[in-house]
Protein backbone atom coordinates (compact mmCIF):
# COMPACT_ATOMS: atom_id res chain seq x y z
CA UNK A 1 0.00 0.00 0.00
CA UNK A 2 2.89 2.36 0.65
CA UNK A 3 3.75 2.08 -3.03
CA UNK A 4 0.25 3.22 -3.92
CA UNK A 5 0.53 6.17 -1.59
CA UNK A 6 3.91 7.14 -2.98
CA UNK A 7 2.49 6.99 -6.47
CA UNK A 8 -0.45 9.13 -5.46
CA UNK A 9 1.90 11.62 -3.88
CA UNK A 10 3.64 12.10 -7.21
CA UNK A 11 0.46 12.63 -9.16
CA UNK A 12 -0.48 15.99 -10.46
CA UNK A 13 -3.87 17.23 -9.33
CA UNK A 14 -5.45 16.56 -12.70
CA UNK A 15 -4.03 13.07 -12.86
CA UNK A 16 -5.18 12.49 -9.32
CA UNK A 17 -8.67 13.55 -10.32
CA UNK A 18 -8.70 11.03 -13.10
CA UNK A 19 -7.30 8.26 -10.96
CA UNK A 20 -9.83 8.77 -8.22
CA UNK A 21 -12.90 9.50 -10.28
CA UNK A 22 -12.29 6.71 -12.75
CA UNK A 23 -10.85 4.45 -10.09
CA UNK A 24 -13.91 4.67 -7.92
CA UNK A 25 -16.23 3.89 -10.76
CA UNK A 26 -13.95 1.17 -12.07
CA UNK A 27 -14.15 -0.43 -8.68
CA UNK A 28 -17.90 -0.16 -8.81
CA UNK A 29 -18.14 -1.55 -12.30
CA UNK A 30 -15.71 -4.37 -11.77
CA UNK A 31 -17.68 -5.82 -8.93
CA UNK A 32 -14.87 -5.94 -6.37
CA UNK A 33 -15.79 -9.47 -5.40
CA UNK A 34 -13.05 -9.79 -2.82
CA UNK A 35 -14.14 -6.61 -1.10
CA UNK A 36 -17.69 -7.82 -1.09
CA UNK A 37 -16.68 -11.11 0.43
CA UNK A 38 -14.71 -9.39 3.17
CA UNK A 39 -17.28 -6.77 4.13
CA UNK A 40 -17.63 -8.29 7.55
CA UNK A 41 -14.00 -7.40 8.26
CA UNK A 42 -14.14 -3.81 7.06
CA UNK A 43 -15.17 -0.54 8.64
CA UNK A 44 -18.40 1.38 8.24
CA UNK A 45 -17.69 5.10 7.95
CA UNK A 46 -21.31 6.20 7.69
CA UNK A 47 -21.22 8.32 10.85
CA UNK A 48 -18.55 10.45 9.30
CA UNK A 49 -20.95 11.47 6.51
CA UNK A 50 -24.31 11.52 8.28
CA UNK A 51 -24.50 15.30 8.58
CA UNK A 52 -24.50 15.76 4.80
CA UNK A 53 -27.59 15.92 2.61
CA UNK A 54 -27.94 13.71 -0.41
CA UNK A 55 -27.93 15.50 -3.75
CA UNK A 56 -30.77 15.20 -6.23
CA UNK A 57 -29.32 13.28 -9.18
CA UNK A 58 -32.00 12.54 -11.80
CA UNK A 59 -31.17 10.11 -14.56
CA UNK A 60 -30.53 11.37 -18.05
CA UNK A 61 -31.67 9.89 -21.37
CA UNK A 62 -28.81 8.31 -23.31
CA UNK A 63 -30.73 8.82 -26.55
CA UNK A 64 -30.49 12.56 -25.97
CA UNK A 65 -26.80 12.70 -25.16
CA UNK A 66 -24.64 14.64 -27.59
CA UNK A 67 -21.28 13.07 -26.77
CA UNK A 68 -18.54 15.68 -26.50
CA UNK A 69 -15.09 15.24 -27.97
CA UNK A 70 -13.44 14.68 -24.61
CA UNK A 71 -15.51 11.53 -24.14
CA UNK A 72 -15.10 10.32 -27.72
CA UNK A 73 -11.32 10.70 -27.52
CA UNK A 74 -11.12 8.91 -24.18
CA UNK A 75 -12.32 5.61 -25.62
CA UNK A 76 -15.13 3.11 -25.06
CA UNK A 77 -14.36 2.31 -21.43
CA UNK A 78 -14.62 5.93 -20.38
CA UNK A 79 -17.78 6.34 -22.43
CA UNK A 80 -19.24 3.35 -20.59
CA UNK A 81 -18.44 5.09 -17.30
CA UNK A 82 -20.33 8.15 -18.47
CA UNK A 83 -23.26 6.05 -19.62
CA UNK A 84 -23.38 4.34 -16.26
CA UNK A 85 -23.33 7.65 -14.42
CA UNK A 86 -26.08 9.09 -16.61
CA UNK A 87 -28.35 6.09 -16.03
CA UNK A 88 -27.67 5.53 -12.33
CA UNK A 89 -28.12 8.84 -10.57
CA UNK A 90 -30.11 7.32 -7.74
CA UNK A 91 -27.20 5.07 -6.84
CA UNK A 92 -24.27 7.32 -7.66
CA UNK A 93 -25.59 10.16 -5.52
CA UNK A 94 -24.49 7.98 -2.60
CA UNK A 95 -21.01 7.27 -3.97
CA UNK A 96 -18.13 9.63 -3.10
CA UNK A 97 -15.09 10.89 -4.92
CA UNK A 98 -11.80 11.23 -3.06
CA UNK A 99 -9.80 13.51 -5.34
CA UNK A 100 -10.45 16.73 -3.46
CA UNK A 101 -13.09 17.94 -5.91
CA UNK A 102 -15.36 18.81 -2.99
CA UNK A 103 -13.35 22.03 -2.93
CA UNK A 104 -14.82 22.70 -6.37
CA UNK A 105 -18.32 22.12 -5.06
CA UNK A 106 -18.70 18.48 -6.00
CA UNK A 107 -21.09 16.55 -3.78
CA UNK A 108 -20.51 13.02 -5.04
CA UNK A 109 -18.69 10.92 -7.62
CA UNK A 110 -21.27 11.67 -10.29
CA UNK A 111 -20.39 15.36 -10.24
CA UNK A 112 -17.07 14.52 -11.95
CA UNK A 113 -19.12 13.24 -14.89
CA UNK A 114 -22.50 14.97 -15.01
CA UNK A 115 -22.89 18.70 -14.53
CA UNK A 116 -26.58 18.94 -15.26
CA UNK A 117 -29.56 16.90 -16.36
CA UNK A 118 -32.16 18.91 -18.23
CA UNK A 119 -35.91 18.38 -18.06
CA UNK A 120 -35.91 16.67 -21.46
CA UNK A 121 -33.28 14.14 -20.37
CA UNK A 122 -30.37 15.74 -22.17
CA UNK A 123 -27.25 16.25 -20.09
CA UNK A 124 -24.29 18.55 -19.72
CA UNK A 125 -21.21 16.45 -19.05
CA UNK A 126 -18.17 17.37 -16.99
CA UNK A 127 -14.73 16.77 -18.44
CA UNK A 128 -13.00 16.34 -15.10
CA UNK A 129 -12.83 12.55 -15.11
CA UNK A 130 -11.08 11.84 -18.46
CA UNK A 131 -9.01 14.97 -18.97
Amino acid at each position, binding site marked *: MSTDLEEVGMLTRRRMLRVCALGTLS*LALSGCAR*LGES*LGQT*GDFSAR*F*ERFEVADEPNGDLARVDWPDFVQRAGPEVRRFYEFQIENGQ*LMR*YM*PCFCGCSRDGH*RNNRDCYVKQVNADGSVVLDSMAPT
Partner: protein
Amino acid sequence: MIAMKGQGMTPRQIRIAIDNKYREFLEDATPTPYPPA
Protein backbone atom coordinates in the same frame (compact mmCIF):
# COMPACT_ATOMS: atom_id res chain seq x y z
CA MET B 1 -21.88 -1.96 -10.52
CA ILE B 2 -23.55 -4.39 -12.86
CA ALA B 3 -21.44 -7.19 -11.43
CA MET B 4 -22.07 -6.12 -7.86
CA LYS B 5 -25.79 -6.01 -8.44
CA GLY B 6 -25.46 -9.50 -9.81
CA GLN B 7 -23.77 -10.52 -6.59
CA GLY B 8 -26.67 -9.09 -4.64
CA MET B 9 -24.69 -6.31 -2.97
CA THR B 10 -26.81 -3.43 -1.73
CA PRO B 11 -25.92 0.21 -2.38
CA ARG B 12 -24.80 0.49 1.22
CA GLN B 13 -22.51 -2.52 0.91
CA ILE B 14 -21.03 -1.03 -2.23
CA ARG B 15 -20.43 2.28 -0.45
CA ILE B 16 -18.73 0.52 2.46
CA ALA B 17 -16.49 -1.36 0.05
CA ILE B 18 -15.50 1.83 -1.77
CA ASP B 19 -14.82 3.76 1.43
CA ASN B 20 -12.62 0.95 2.67
CA LYS B 21 -10.77 0.73 -0.63
CA TYR B 22 -10.00 4.46 -0.47
CA ARG B 23 -9.90 4.85 3.31
CA GLU B 24 -6.54 6.64 3.18
CA PHE B 25 -8.27 9.44 1.27
CA LEU B 26 -11.39 9.86 3.39
CA GLU B 27 -10.29 13.34 4.42
CA ASP B 28 -10.70 14.38 0.78
CA ALA B 29 -14.02 12.64 0.21
CA THR B 30 -16.97 14.55 -1.15
CA PRO B 31 -19.76 15.31 1.36
CA THR B 32 -21.75 12.30 0.25
CA PRO B 33 -24.04 10.56 2.75
CA TYR B 34 -24.43 6.82 2.94
CA PRO B 35 -27.38 5.07 1.31
CA PRO B 36 -30.19 4.21 3.70
CA ALA B 37 -29.64 1.00 5.64
